């Protein structure tokens, strides 16, 4: 009788624990997503975004002139000229301040969400 009861409870308990562990680890593992930033009206829109490590920010030039995306202030990296209608992808690993080196009044910021 006792043997039967343990057998009956064992499988559901293992499955429940497995679901719990799997669920928790899934919560910690973020699936990278794409985040869009447009360059228009001589602005980065939105100019400030919050993302996770590994997310890809896609900058698309919807303006009327050529722009670029350049690390601020050290120019550690740059997209180079982005033609009208063109885009530039950046995989985010850390907080980033950036600007358009062609039009230095255009500035933006990417903050990494730390959980």
């Amino acid at each position, binding site marked *: 009788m006792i043997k039967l009861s343990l057998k009956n409870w064992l499988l559901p308990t293992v499955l429940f624990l497995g679901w719990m562990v799997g669920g928790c680890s899934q919560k910690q593992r973020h699936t990278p997503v794409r985040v869009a930033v447009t360059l228009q*009206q*001589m*602005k980065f829109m939105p100019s400030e975004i919050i993302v996770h490590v590994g997310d890809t920010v896609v900058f698309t030039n919807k*303006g*009327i*002139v*050529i722009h670029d995306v350049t690390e601020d202030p050290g120019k550690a990296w740059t997209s180079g000229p982005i033609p*009208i209608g063109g885009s530039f992808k950046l995989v985010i690993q850390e907080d980033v301040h950036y600007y358009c080196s*062609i*039009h*230095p*009044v*255009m500035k933006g910021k990417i903050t990494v969400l730390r959980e």
Partner: protein
Amino acid sequence: MKKKLEMNFKGTTLLAVSLLLFVSVGHTQKTPKLSDAEVAHVAVVANQIDIDYAAIAKDKSKNADILKFAQTMANDHSAIIKQAAALAEKLGVTPKDNAVSKQLLDGSRKKQKELRTMSKKAFDKAYIDNEVAYHQAVIGAVEGLLIPETENTELKDLLKNVLPALKAHLAHAEMVQKTYASK
């Protein structure tokens, strides 16, 4: 009004002041009536003038900030002219010469002569001062004259889209100008 404008823009170019006066007249009774073809011509001329100023800067300056700014002006205003020309073609509009564009050209010729004959030492500051004044004047003209005068929606939208670029150019020019404030 005229006196006030001249005081506010003391030291700026004749062209800038004349453009502003055009706009100020527009706000009173004698609004210069422009057809869409004339608006398109003024827009092309205004952009071409700044490309011409940039060409002088490339000839005369050795300052990296001035040269970079001039290159941006040449590239951006060329791109705007290209889009204006494409739109004019699409709409079947042939840009038409008019009093405003003539006045712009007359003023710019005088300013270009002044900049070309200036010593290289004095040039950089004079160029960037003129860029600040010119963009202030053109922004005033686009907002106060060209957009209100335009009937075609697509041409009006193009002019509205150009405004942020002109304002960013002005802010950029003012940034460069500040570096000369203490000199």
